[in-house]
């Protein structure tokens, strides 16, 4: 109790950090989860798409800035870069690799994306080099917000406080709407639930798959693009991202969009609180949460238990 009264406001601060972190985590995981739902492949190369999205956004942004573009243009540039990456790479990867593999064993499908990941890691290095890259014009342009803390104030960047959670919420809302209320979205859901039945109903599963993968790729790229203003992009950034989003997806339940949001929130807040309470366990938090959730809900938070047909 004494601890709480002493640290009560700190908890509030941890909440703010946790939210923005959760937003960043959600942005990566949601695409992965969407793709898993439809393709039943845990796409390891999702991490590379994240990194490439970040690099592409930074390159494009720095290029625009060198032409004298105003700083507010940075935000649309982030979006444009991720759409570009998704639209260029998504269909190519889906068409040339995953589609050929879709009747193979799940292990092989997963390893194909692992191989792709290894290739993209080195390609990235060849294109962008090894020196950290950053594009922080949009963040600088938005400035900071002072959050009161007792008699003190704590500055947060407006980007972290508004843009990240804002984009995450918008993404969640749009996806939820599209999946629930549009024809295309319902086709995606139908394929997620039962591919064969969806086909039997006359849904063009191949088209749905391609579309979903492209959207997933664009979401990964968007995750990277959104990170570009705050983090430094270095070789290996994709690898650390992908393990984290795996944990989110397993916690969430496969293919569950809302689940990804809740899981990201749990992991984001858990990590933030760990930094305050037990900083030495911060690294383990996502895994601990995942193990705890799966212990009680083996199919993940929002996963539907699959009963085997006999």
């Amino acid at each position, binding site marked *: 109790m004494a601890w709480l009264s002493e640290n009560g406001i700190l908890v509030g601060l941890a909440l703010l950090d946790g939210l923005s972190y959760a937003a960043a985590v959600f942005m990566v995981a949601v695409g992965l989860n969407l793709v898993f739902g439809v393709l039943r492949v*845990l796409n390891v190369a999702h991490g590379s798409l994240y990194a490439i999205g970040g690099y592409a956004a930074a390159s494009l942004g720095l290029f625009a800035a060198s032409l004298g573009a105003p700083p507010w243009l940075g935000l649309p540039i982030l979006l444009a870069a991720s759409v570009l990456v998704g639209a260029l790479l998504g269909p190519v990867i889906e068409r040339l690799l995953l589609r050929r593999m879709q009747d193979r064993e799940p292990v092989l499908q997963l*390893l194909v994306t*692992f*191989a792709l990941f290894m290739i993209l890691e080195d390609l990235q290095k060849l294109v962008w080099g090894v020196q950290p890259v950053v594009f922080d014009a949009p963040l600088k342009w938005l400035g900071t917000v002072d959050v009161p803390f007792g008699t003190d104030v704590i500055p947060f960047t407006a980007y972290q406080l508004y843009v990240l959670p804002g984009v995450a919420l918008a993404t969640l809302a749009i996806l939820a709407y599209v999946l629930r209320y549009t024809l295309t979205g319902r086709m995606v859901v139908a394929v997620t639930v039962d591919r064969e039945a969806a086909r039997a109903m006359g849904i063009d599963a191949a088209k749905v798959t391609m579309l979903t993968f492209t959207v997933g790729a664009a979401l990964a790229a968007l995750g990277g693009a959104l990170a570009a203003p705050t983090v430094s992009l270095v070789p290996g950034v994709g*690898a650390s991202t992908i393990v984290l989003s795996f944990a989110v997806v397993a916690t969430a339940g496969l293919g569950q969009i809302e689940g990804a949001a809740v899981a990201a929130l749990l992991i984001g807040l858990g990590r933030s609180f760990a930094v305050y309470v037990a900083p030495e366990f911060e690294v*383990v938090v996502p895994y601990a949460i995942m193990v705890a959730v*799966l212990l009680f809900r083996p199919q993940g938070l929002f996963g539907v238990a699959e009963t*085997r047909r006999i």
Partner: protein
Amino acid sequence: MTRRSETLLALAGAALIVVLAYAVPWLRFVLTIALAKGLAVLGILLLLRAGQVSFGHALYLALAAYTVAFGAMAVPEALLLLPLAALLAGVLGLLIGLFVVRYREIFFGMLNLALSMVFYSVLEKFYALTHGADGIRLPPVTVLGQPLAGETGEWTVLGLALVLALACGALVRVALASPLGEALAGIKTRETRLDFMGVSPKRVLLAAYVASAVMAGFAGAIIALTTRHVTPALSYWTTSGELVFIAILGGSGSVIGPFLGAAAYELTRVYAAATFANAWQMVLGLVLLGVIVFAPGGIWGMISSRRRAA
């Protein structure tokens, strides 16, 4: 492929390894590592039989390696350390196995990954004891009282690895054809049927899981005795991924596959690293992609189909 021709092939392979290690001294080290990884992959193969993929078996590898490193400080006898390391790996495998055999597919894979990442964090965390990422240098070790050093030492460890590889390979070969082994394969195709035959699939999988942990333990011990330096990177998820990679590369059709895969993997990496120090990862990725797309049976599949065609 008959049992006899497989045995002959295994013995020929062993002879080839000895010849290569004699003719090209620096390959001794690489081949020892390859044999060790082959041992761990043999365990992965067991799980693959049941259709399950573990992305966390590096945990047992690392546990055994650290057991050897710490154990050598008290009892520097390799012939004691080796079984001790494998035993500890087996015990941990049993404890973790009791929990993870309830899960299938991606959840099984992710839980294993999570637990190995927790172990990785523990190794980093208790850096006062483990020196974290710097790792531990093994104190001098003996075999039957003779110091394990220099060229004799290298041959001794290679010999140990070879004996273990042949023994475990033969054992797994026999076990896979036994009722337990066939029931294991039954988990992949029709798990429920096992229950309705009075056989617990969880226990069958647990047996395979413990065996795989023990073999990963042997592998970790051999790696520790060879590199004489252990680091937490041994338990990182990429090491586990590498094991699955090798399993697919070698092919899961025979117990020879893992060793073929491991040798091919290590040699490819060494030569790729020597030729394209900048992009060895891409070379490996391309090789894996090629194998999956064009030769889903792995290297073993290529060999056995050639023999069949001949």
